[in-house]
């Protein structure tokens, strides 16, 4: 109580003094009323007034009071240099905010454990090696029968959980006309109990819901989806919906904290794995495997056991696949099985953005260091201006620690003002960055908690920042020797050395940031300027599904109907749009030879697709109505080169060699220019377009479940027609439903989302770094001109030329800039290999890339140097000498 009242007294200092004064006044008045001589009463109290300070001291804790005094004094200092203070606070706020924001993203995506029991016991199983496509890679998808074998083998030692990739699927709660999208995921029935997840409503799956294929058409909603879609309606349990070919009943809602095991995607609906039609297939891999390893089980023996089981499974399965080349078979069976810790879950976004976020984190940290160096220089310059004040304080007995405290408090005040603005910036910017990861129709959703972790990081960072920019100036200020100040100035060179050191650091970091930003921007430019081989302009894609599947004739009727709508120039069909990211591949056999190790990639298209997409036909003809899948193909140049020896491929024959040994003869009717099929970053693939019309052995036309209408519109913005065309498709046949309407331009851009994000943010931080470094340079140059004006004046009086003066001002700083640039270059070249996977067709050693930081920094130096140099030149020797 007493301590508390003392602490609170610290903040009531003024009032307390007034209280005491008033009490003394009352005392004197009383004395006079009692007949004492006023003069004498006042005099008697004089001693007390002198001891008022003592009374006050009794009421406050000493150091707290001095802290308050320092805060007030620091605040006045900040207010006195308003412009510089605001600049310092803003630059620190931006840098701290960006760092905190980067921390939030990295923490949420990569570091935060899943909200399950014992996340540290979670492992993920994957394979690494050369896959069926002949490429080296890491694969984490598994076949269910394989999973069942593994699960039985390690029963009692570890729990295996199957979790499919989140599927952005069409689901229907009422009629087919009200189809909507939801993230659906197939999970093992025992996942919820193994994770220790409780129901928020109803019940969750148990092992009993996941015993037999197709036996338990039940669904569990995530809390997030239940809130968004149903407004937390408790009556949702028991409702049914359509998904795929089945009808599912909602049995419960999972706990709020659990949003799935894929950071970056929030699951809406969980379904038992046994409801997936592929659950009995040996040749289809469609889910990830998480393994709970209890404390008693050693990881390596467990991995070896699982590896042995899956190897035996694959060997047995592939022995039946006569269509594989021996080389592929050998490669696939040589794959290594890996068991890696996965306390944070596993997701595509983690893999895709792990390095990108790391790189951004480093960039913003550099910006923070640049900002700190700036503020440190500012504080040093101010400390110089206050050297006399400090000397005075020392001469009247201020302790060294007292001075350090005073300067540090001022720094802390600055930093915490900055941190408050930074918190706002981080609160706003982290979700903004996530929203920039926005593939059409399926934007990333990342849970970004603002909890004690983020708060702790922010506070920790602010304290570090205070020490970074405050400690050195504080120690310097406190080590002031009154004698040297009173003699007319201490050694100014030591202070300049410090400032020049800071400049070198700033330039090094700035060079680094600009170099990396240049690499990212160049990558994005190279990718976006890359010709795709087709024209995406004015193309609207209507990805359409049909339940049940319809004959190709009806699909063609729908296309005909769309053609009749005003504003539509051309319509054709494809199984899926180019650059959607999916593919269908098979081996090729020419002249009855063995199946190729290289795979060819296929797409069903209608006649006119080439024309709609504006892909050039360079030989032969386009498809015609009535062309059948069974004997016509259009191949691209790469295909012709790789499989058909390139010389006039039209009319040549080849076979599609399936894994199971079936051969499908094909004949080339046309050759087209190369166009990107799946991903613009991969090398050009050998591509074969084939017709939709597909007759089976009994000469029956096979029905189609989904097709994409590729619509070329007359208007520049194809999206304007999306809703009309959506309705028109369903009007032709009610079985048809457009599940996605997007533009080809969107798909093209979706290829470069990460690159655009990196380029945008790196460009922004590059600009900030350059600005801060420029301001820092200007500040230091300006300061050194002020410091040297006496000397410059004397030199000019003695006949120094303009060039001499400019050189005198610039020499020190030029050396600092040069050293900084070299250090930054070394730093950049050393670290560029960590971001190589993020770059495209660009190297750090490219002249164009190196020119970016060199030229911009040179420009910044020139711009920053002009005003101080002019100032130096305008020094009037006479006036300067007269002052002395």
């Amino acid at each position, binding site marked *: 109580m007493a301590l508390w009242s003392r602490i609170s007294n610290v903040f009531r200092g003024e009032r307390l003094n007034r209280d*005491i004064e*008033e*009490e003394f006044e*009352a005392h004197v008045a009383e004395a006079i009323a009692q007949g004492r001589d006023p003069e004498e009463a006042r005099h008697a109290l004089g*001693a*007390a007034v002198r001891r008022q300070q*003592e009374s006050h001291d*009794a*009421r406050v804790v000493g150091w707290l009071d001095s802290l308050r005094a320092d805060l007030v004094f620091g605040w006045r200092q900040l207010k006195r240099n308003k412009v510089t203070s605001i600049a310092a606070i803003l630059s620190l706020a931006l840098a701290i905010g960006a760092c905190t924001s980067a921390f939030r993203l990295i923490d949420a995506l990569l570091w935060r454990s899943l909200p399950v029991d014992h996340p540290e016991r979670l492992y993920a199983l994957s394979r690494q090696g050369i896959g069926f496509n002949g490429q080296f890679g890491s694969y984490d998808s598994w076949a269910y029968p394989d999973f069942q074998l593994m699960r039985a083998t390690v029963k009692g030692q570890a729990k295996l959980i199957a979790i499919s990739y989140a599927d952005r699927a069409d689901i229907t709660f009422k009629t087919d006309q009200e189809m909507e999208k939801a993230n659906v995921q197939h999970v093992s029935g025992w996942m919820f109990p193994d994770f220790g997840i409780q129901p928020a409503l109803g019940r969750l799956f148990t092992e009993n819901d996941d015993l037999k294929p197709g036996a338990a058409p039940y669904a569990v909603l995530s809390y997030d989806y239940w809130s968004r879609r149903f407004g937390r309606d408790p009556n949702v349990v028991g409702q049914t919906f359509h998904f795929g070919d089945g009808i599912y009943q909602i049995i419960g809602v999972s706990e709020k904290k659990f949003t799935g095991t894929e950071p970056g995607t929030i699951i809406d609906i969980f379904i038992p794995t046994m409801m997936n039609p592929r659950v009995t297939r040996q040749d289809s891999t469609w889910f990830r495997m998480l393994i709970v390893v209890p404390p008693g089980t050693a990881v390596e023996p467990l991995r070896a056991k699982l590896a042995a089981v899956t190897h035996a499974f694959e060997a047995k399965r592939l022995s039946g696949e006569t269509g594989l080349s021996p080389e592929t078979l050998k490669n696939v069976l040589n794959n290594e099985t890996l068991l890696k810790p996965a306390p944070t879950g596993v997701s595509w976004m983690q893999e895709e953005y792990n390095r990108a976020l790391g790189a951004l984190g480093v960039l913003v940290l550099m910006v923070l260091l640049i900002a700190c160096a700036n503020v440190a220089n500012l504080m040093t310059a101010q400390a110089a201006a206050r050297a006399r004040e400090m000397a005075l304080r020392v001469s009247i007995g201020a302790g060294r620690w007292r001075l350090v405290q005073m300067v540090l408090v001022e720094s802390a005040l600055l930093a915490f003002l900055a941190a408050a603005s930074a918190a706002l910036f981080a609160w706003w910017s982290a979700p903004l960055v996530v929203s920039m990861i926005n593939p059409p129709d399926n934007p990333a959703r990342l849970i970004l908690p603002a909890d004690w972790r983020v708060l702790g990081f922010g506070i920790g960072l602010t304290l570090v920042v205070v020490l970074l920019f405050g400690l050195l100036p504080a120690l310097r200020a406190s080590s002031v020797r009154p004698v040297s100040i009173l003699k007319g100035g201490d050694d100014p060179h030591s202070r300049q050395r410090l400032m020049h050191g800071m400049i070198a650091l700033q330039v090094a970091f700035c060079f680094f940031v600009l170099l990396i930003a240049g690499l990212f921007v160049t990558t994005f430019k190279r990718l976006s300027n890359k010709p795709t081989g087709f024209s995406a302009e004015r193309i609207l894609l209507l990805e359409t599904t049909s339940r049940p599947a319809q004959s190709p004739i009806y699909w063609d009727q729908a296309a005909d109907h769309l053609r009749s709508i005003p504003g539509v120039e051309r319509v054709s069909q494809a199984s899926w749009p180019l650059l959607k990211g999916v593919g269908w591949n098979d081996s090729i056999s020419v002249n009855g030879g063995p199946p190729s190790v290289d795979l060819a990639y296929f797409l069903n298209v209608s006649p006119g697709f080439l024309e709609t997409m504006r892909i050039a036909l360079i030989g032969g003809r386009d498809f015609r109505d009535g062309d059948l899948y069974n004997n016509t193909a259009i191949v691209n140049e790469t295909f012709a080169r790789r499989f058909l020896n390139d010389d006039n491929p039209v009319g040549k024959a080849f076979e599609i060699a399936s894994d199971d040994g079936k051969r499908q003869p094909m004949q080339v009717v046309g050759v087209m220019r190369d166009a990107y099929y799946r991903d613009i970053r991969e090398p050009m693939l050998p591509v074969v377009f084939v017709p939709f019309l597909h007759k089976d052995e009994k000469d029956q036309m096979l029905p189609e479940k989904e097709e994409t209408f590729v619509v070329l519109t007359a208007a520049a913005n194809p999206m304007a027609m999306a809703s009309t065309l959506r309705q028109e498709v369903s009007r032709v046949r009610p079985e048809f439903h457009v599940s996605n309407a997007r533009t080809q331009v969107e798909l093209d851009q979706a290829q470069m989302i990460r690159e655009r994000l990196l380029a945008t943010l790196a460009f922004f931080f590059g600009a900030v770094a350059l600005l801060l470094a420029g301001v820092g340079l200007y500040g230091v140059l300006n300061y050194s001109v002020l410091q040297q004006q006496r000397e410059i004046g004397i030199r000019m009086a003695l006949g120094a030329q303009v060039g001499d003066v400019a050189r005198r001002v610039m020499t020190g700083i030029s050396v600092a800039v040069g050293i900084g640039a070299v250090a930054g270059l070394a730093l950049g070249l050393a670290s560029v290999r960590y971001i190589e996977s993020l770059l495209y067709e660009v190297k750090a050693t490219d002249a164009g890339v190196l020119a970016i930081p060199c030229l911009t920094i040179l420009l910044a130096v020139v711009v920053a140097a002009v005003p101080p140099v002019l100032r130096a030149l305008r020094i009037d020797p006479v006036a300067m000498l007269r002052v002395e």
Partner: protein
Amino acid sequence: MPKTDSLQGSLDLLVLKILSRRPRLHGYAIMSAIGEMSDDVLRAEEGSLYPALHRMEESGWIRAEWVTKDTGRRARIYELTAAGKKQLAAEESRWVTVTSAVNRILRTV
């Protein structure tokens, strides 16, 4: 608790004792009371009294309150707290011990 010398100790004791008999006095009244009751033998200096009052207030022995007097002037009056009563008892017994010890010495010598 701040270390008190014997003189200050006796001032504290006097103030506490007076406040226990006559609660709600202001500083001047306490000063006058000390004079009156000791037949002007003892006199509390303003310079010691007020710091002592504030210190005792911080220690929680007495509490202060602003009241408006009939004259319209505000006065700060003091009264004993429970802790103050305990302190008074302790100080009183200490005083008795000290004075009786001093008396014993005076008698013996």
